[in-house]
């Protein structure tokens, strides 16, 4: 009775308030170095994220959507906050496992809480003022967080020195893109005097050159913010050298905020798509091609696991851009595009988190980041090896896994188009663009799958040991190449494997129209 009474009174801001509360509460323990206090603060933060996630979904279920001058909370925002909170819970796990011995652990957790709080405010922001301010605060918090995660007191060697240089360079690019957003907002303000993207569509000045210049600068800033090719240097170099947990912060807190800014701009984008869909489609297809080819070639070329994952992460963004190109071509509607973007992010997260959990443990054991470390991994670590292979296959888009569902729903509208092309009255330009879309999708998916197979082959390989090989040292010391994963890690990896398998099989059954009557909803209903 009391609980239902409380749940009836909740407000969309409650989940953000909870995160802020957890951050402020942790401040009182900021200087403590005692392990029980560290564990206590971690539990408080985890509870805040979990309860925030529950409140966020509950808010939407009971219909507490709202929109005012500064903020907007609807289905899109609910989904974005849910993804961020779920991933934050996972990142908290990684940060705790890898950094609990550090003296500044509680400071890291405090800044992490503020980062997630900043992200939730940014997602809900509606007005240019709130969008810009919360994004700037979010980037600042992310910078503080990553610099704290990479801080080990005074610089002791060249590696630490270069990591800090790469960190500065990375955030200089972020600051640069933020300043471009500021310049874009100033032009939009000058051309329309409106204060939010939703108001812009009502303006007659939407076709003015000044407005178009402002929108172009903002899209360019998103391009820089996401480190899309050929501007990926700072990102790739940082992910190779920084602390293990910071890589996840970059992938799953920093990058999604760029995608969310893109989604905030989508109504304006759709307006221009309706007017100039031919040229915009070419632009989107080119970006998708750059991401697919650049990311995959980069992953093939390197022997560093972190770089492979960093390149593949960029490559996975090509699916997002393909969804936008599909919308521009008129074969994917607005809602399906949103869902493809969310699903791609969610599936990337679901696969990357456990894969990274395995690889980070391997890296910790050998002390270096090399693909040689995982040679023959499956033979020595059977249970984790099988899980790892399954997770990689899922990420690669194997039929019956969650990665396949996204690829299916990208390809399905294209196949439908070619089936009905004789009935549709489409221009020859559109037909040519559609062929390019097919080629890019095929290159993207096949190349991606080839990269994944390359990793799996190495995991299964029984390579001969060379003198000086780290695994040879292992054999001499009697460790036999086996890595002792903690029970927590094994539970974590198994949980995700089961979740991905479950989602994949359910999705596949829904695609082939078999109703098992297990649920009263369909996970593919939104497609």
């Amino acid at each position, binding site marked *: 009775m009391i609980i239902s009474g409380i749940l009836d009174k909740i407000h969309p801001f409650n989940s953000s308030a909870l995160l802020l509360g957890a951050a402020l509460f942790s401040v009182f323990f900021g200087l403590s170095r005692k392990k029980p206090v560290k564990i206590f603060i971690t539990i408080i933060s985890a509870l805040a994220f979990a309860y925030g996630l529950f409140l966020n979904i509950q808010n939407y279920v009971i219909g507490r959507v709202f929109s005012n001058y500064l903020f907007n909370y609807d289905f899109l925002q609910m989904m974005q906050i849910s993804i961020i909170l779920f991933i934050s819970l996972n990142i908290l796990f990684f940060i705790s496992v890898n950094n609990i011995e550090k003296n500044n652990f509680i400071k890291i957790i405090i800044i992490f809480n503020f980062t997630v709080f900043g992200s939730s405010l940014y997602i809900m922001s509606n007005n240019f003022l709130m969008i810009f301010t919360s994004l700037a605060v979010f980037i600042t918090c992310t*910078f503080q967080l990553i610099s704290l995660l990479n801080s080990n007191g005074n*610089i002791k060697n060249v590696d630490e020195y270069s990591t800090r240089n790469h960190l*500065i360079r990375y955030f200089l*690019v972020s*600051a640069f893109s933020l300043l471009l957003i500021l310049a874009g907002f100033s032009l939009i*303000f000058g051309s329309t005097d409106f204060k939010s993207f939703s108001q812009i569509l009502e303006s007659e000045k939407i076709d003015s050159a000044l407005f178009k210049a402002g929108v172009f600068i903002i899209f360019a800033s998103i391009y820089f913010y996401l480190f899309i090719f050929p*501007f990926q240097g700072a990102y790739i170099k940082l992910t190779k050298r920084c602390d293990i947990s910071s890589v996840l912060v970059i992938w799953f807190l920093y990058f999604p905020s760029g995608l969310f800014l893109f989604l905030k701009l989508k109504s304006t984008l759709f307006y221009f798509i309706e007017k100039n869909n031919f040229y915009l489609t070419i632009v989107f297809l080119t970006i998708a091609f750059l991401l697919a080819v650049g990311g995959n070639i*980069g992953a093939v070329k390197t022997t560093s696991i972190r770089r492979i994952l960093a390149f593949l992460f960029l490559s996975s963004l090509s699916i997002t851009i393909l969804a936008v190109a599909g919308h521009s071509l008129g074969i994917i509607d607005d809602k399906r595009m949103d869902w493809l973007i969310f699903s791609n992010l969610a599936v990337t997260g679901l696969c990357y988190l456990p894969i990274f959990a395995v690889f980070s443990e391997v890296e910790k054991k050998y002390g270096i980041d090399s693909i040689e470390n995982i040679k023959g991994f499956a033979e020595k670590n059977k249970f984790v090896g099988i899980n790892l292979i399954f997770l990689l296959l899922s990420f690669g888009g194997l039929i019956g896994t969650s990665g396949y569902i996204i690829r299916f729903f990208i390809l399905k509208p294209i196949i439908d188009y070619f089936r009905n092309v004789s009935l549709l009255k489409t221009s020859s330009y559109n037909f040519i663009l559609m062929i390019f879309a097919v080629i890019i999708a095929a290159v993207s998916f096949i190349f991606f799958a080839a990269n994944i197979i390359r990793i799996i082959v190495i995991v299964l390989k029984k390579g001969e040991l060379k003198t000086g090989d780290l695994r040879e040292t292992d054999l001499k010391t009697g460790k036999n190449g086996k890595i002792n994963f903690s029970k927590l890690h094994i539970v974590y990896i198994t949980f995700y494997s089961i979740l991905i398998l479950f989602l994949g099989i359910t999705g596949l059954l829904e695609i082939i129209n078999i109703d098992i009557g297990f649920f009263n909803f369909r996970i593919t209903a939104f497609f």
Partner: protein
Amino acid sequence: MNIQYISYISFALFLLGLFGASYCRSFLSIIVSFQFLILSSLINFLSFALFLYQSLAWDKTFIIFAFISVYILLFSIVFYNNSRQTHIYELDVLRDFRLFKPDKSDWWGDDKIDDN
């Protein structure tokens, strides 16, 4: 002075900032280029408010909040850079922070011997 000339000046500053940020290699030069970008946006906001939307208070509010948040970010980066000085001129001042380097090492993220 009319809005047209002010816009030209603002655009020139924007281009200067853009060029500096993408071409300069030293930390200080990049930060100075960022100031040109900020200045250009500030001129845009104030000139549009002065000539077109005089009754609005929104632009002033935006300028205050946006600029505070941007400078907090820039201050954090500058402070972090300053806190890790080695007192070796070549390392502290002559480091290459170019945001976008058109070379092979930067494209693939490979490590170079002098890459520190």
